[in-house]
């Protein structure tokens, strides 16, 4: 049996980044939430916000620690498995990755220490300022890494010398055509994911009638935020789609399951795409709808997969279904938000058992949607690693064999399952324990500082 190092390297990269992205999906939003709670506490001096902040900071510390260790793996993946990609693109992307590291290190790590342990050592405004800086650091970090990713999707501002890419215009590289849409859509997705996770914890406590003031406050805050963000995210997703049609039409054709280029393109609701015979089985579709939402015109022509040779098409089935999972979960979130909106006006959101049970069940939904969306954009870019320029199979390290990658992939899978299993277990345990009691919170705010960083996360 021959093992393909390219396929296995792709699986390995997909595996390590899928696990890693779960943590930013949570910490970017959580850092901002902690910032808001700290701000409210500084202004209103209400202990509810302090207790909520203490509670979420503990969980944030664990997630952040896991983000650090799974993040150390990423900069080495480009070298171990994708050395030809590194050689070709480093002049353009290397500085972006370096800025990402610097943003993450200087702002996040520097101020995280003050956020976790400085409560008694610095004045309240400085503590709030640290919370702002940590939130800003996570956002900047996302900006740099998404700028690099967007450049791989829609390269701009470069020149090719000897098959390698050199920067010509840094502004064009940074603000390449897909960056604004990708950044907005991804970061909003992170916020929505975190908000649903926070709401799930609050609903769980409300269902059990414990920590009622904190849980009520946080449920109302997050549902209010989601009422704005979920519709916004649907609009942003639509704009991102329109942008993708313009720059990566074949990716959109795979997302929509469209084989033929045609006007009045149908929106396929369900189908089993068959790449071999270039057709869909069991298709259920609404005529002309895809033309409307992709080009905002019923009669517009939409490019199909058959417009390019099969060697330039992504794996259709994965992209098609990942897209449906993402959109389906988006609509589910919109439905829950609409329900919360009705309850908010009728009153009793925090007492409706059906609503609370649904909100608890929504905990993983944001994370799954983030992974699905990431799959759509990354698998949809195939067979290119840099769209239209560098094929994935030409990017892999020439020296590694299929067996090498199989061995390392197996090792990563074993270690990640243990680490993430334990991490999720400890985070859930912290979440179930709930915010600290009144006296405990006061002690935490005014007592001696803990001896070690991250010991703030001790249960």
């Amino acid at each position, binding site marked *: 049996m021959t093992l393909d190092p390219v396929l296995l390297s792709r699986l390995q990269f997909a595996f390590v980044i899928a696990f890693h992205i779960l943590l930013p999906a949570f910490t970017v939003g959580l850092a901002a939430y902690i910032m808001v709670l700290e701000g409210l506490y500084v202004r209103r001096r209400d202990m509810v916000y302090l207790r909520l902040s203490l509670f979420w900071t503990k969980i944030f510390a664990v997630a952040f620690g896991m983000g650090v260790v799974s993040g150390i793996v990423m900069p080495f993946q480009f070298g171990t498995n994708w050395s030809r990609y590194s050689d070709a693109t480093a002049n353009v992307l290397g500085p972006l990755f370096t800025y990402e590291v*610097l943003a993450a290190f200087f702002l996040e790590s520097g101020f995280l220490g003050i956020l976790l342990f400085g409560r008694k050592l610095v004045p309240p405004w400085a503590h709030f300022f640290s919370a702002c800086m940590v939130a800003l650091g996570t956002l900047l970090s996302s900006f740099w890494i998404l700028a690099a990713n967007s450049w791989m999707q829609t390269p701009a501002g470069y020149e090719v010398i000897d098959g390698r890419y050199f920067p010509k215009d840094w502004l064009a590289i940074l603000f390449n055509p897909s960056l604004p849409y990708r950044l907005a859509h991804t970061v909003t997705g992170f916020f929505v994911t975190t908000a649903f996770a926070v709401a799930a914890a609050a609903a769980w406590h409300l269902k059990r009638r414990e920590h009622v003031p904190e849980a009520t406050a946080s449920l109302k805050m997050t549902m209010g935020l989601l009422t704005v963000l979920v519709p916004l995210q649907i609009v942003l997703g639509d704009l991102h789609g329109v942008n993708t049609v313009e720059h990566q039409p074949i990716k959109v054709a795979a997302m929509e399951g469209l084989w033929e280029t045609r006007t009045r393109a149908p929106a396929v609701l369900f189908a089993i795409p068959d790449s071999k015979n270039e057709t869909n089985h069991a298709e259920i579709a609404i005529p002309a709808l895809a033309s409307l939402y992709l080009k905002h015109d019923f009669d517009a022509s939409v490019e199909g997969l058959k417009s390019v040779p099969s060697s330039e098409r992504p794996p259709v089935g994965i992209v098609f279904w990942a897209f449906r999972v993402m959109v389906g979960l988006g609509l589910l979130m919109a439905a829950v938000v609409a329900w919360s909106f009705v309850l908010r006006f009728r009153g009793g959101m925090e007492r409706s058992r059906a609503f609370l049970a649904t909100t608890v069940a929504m905990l993983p939904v944001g994370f799954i949607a983030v992974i699905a969306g990431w799959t759509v954009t990354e698998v949809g870019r195939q067979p290119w690693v840099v769209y239209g320029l560098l094929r994935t199979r030409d990017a892999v390290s020439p020296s590694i064999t299929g067996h090498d990658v199989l*061995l390392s992939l197996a090792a990563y899978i074993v270690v990640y399952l243990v680490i993430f299993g334990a*991490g999720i277990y400890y985070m859930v345990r912290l979440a179930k324990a709930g915010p600290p009691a009144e006296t405990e919170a006061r002690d935490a705010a005014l007592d001696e500082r803990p001896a070690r960083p991250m010991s703030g996360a001790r249960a």
Partner: protein
Amino acid sequence: MIDLVPIWTLVIGFGVFMYVLLDGFDLGVGILFPFARGEEERNLMMNSVAPVWDGNETWLVLGGTALLAVFPLAYAIIIPALYFPIALMLLGLILRGVAFEFRFKATRYMHWWNRSFFGGSLAATFFQGVVLGNFVRGFAVDGRHFAGSSFDWLSPFPLLAGLGLVCGYAMLGATWLVMKTEGELQQASRRQARWLLLGVLAFILMVSLWTPFMASQIAARWFTWPNMAYFAPVPVVTALIAWTTWHALASDRDTVPFLGARAVRDVLRGARDQPLSLRRAVLGHAARRRGVTELAGLPAGRHDVPAAVRVHLHVLVVLRVPRQGARGHRVSLKRAPMPAPAVTCSRPCRCSRSRRPAPG
């Protein structure tokens, strides 16, 4: 335009140097973990490095990304050549990194996180030594690619370097514990440090004798005039520092051994192997291709300033880690007796609240 290559060589060399210096002792504490007698001592050992380990490790990430950004050709050749040592080092770092978090939360499975902390530290250190040994040995290159197989690293010299680094980091860890702990743990660490110092000297001797036979470029550099004159003080200074460290360990001085242990490592591995070999690997490959400066990918080398500031802050943090033990300010996690507060009152934890009015 200024030539960025020497600047960035210094920045990365400095990053690696800081990493060996800083992460060296906390990995060493991990390696010494099984020799502790009981959970109480293990708590002390872990607490002594817990405030600084993650800061120490950021140097590694900075080194990795800076190599990619500034010397992409070296990155694209060296990293795939070291496929398994790097993967195993990363897995080791993950396993020991989460142990800091999880060990204190675990109840039933604490011993598993003890093992994960020890095994991860040992693996990360050993494979860092293997990486270092391969640097000295050099890599098979064809055009712009590594031309060997993923198992080329598996040869006697790198494995010896791996064992040497385990011994060296363990010595750093032991001297760190001499500096930061008290009582029986400190005494045990003193004894361990002396044995490890002998081991380190043996490894230094072996590596130094072996290197010129294996890498002819290094032999040429060592044994030509005037380089010989520049390098001549290295063995003398090493011997002097080793002698001082040995005697400091025998007496009751706590800080000198740590500084001495650092110096032994720095003078040898730092001053000799790394900058020279890094320059050799990076510049050698580059010069053979298309001139040197094209490899510099950044428009301007601005990062060295914040990096320097960061070192400063971090070194301060490292030196301020309090001594762990019964006399120390913060004791074990079991919350053994705290020093009596200055103002006494009936409820000890609620007294000094004067800094900020109680909210709410």
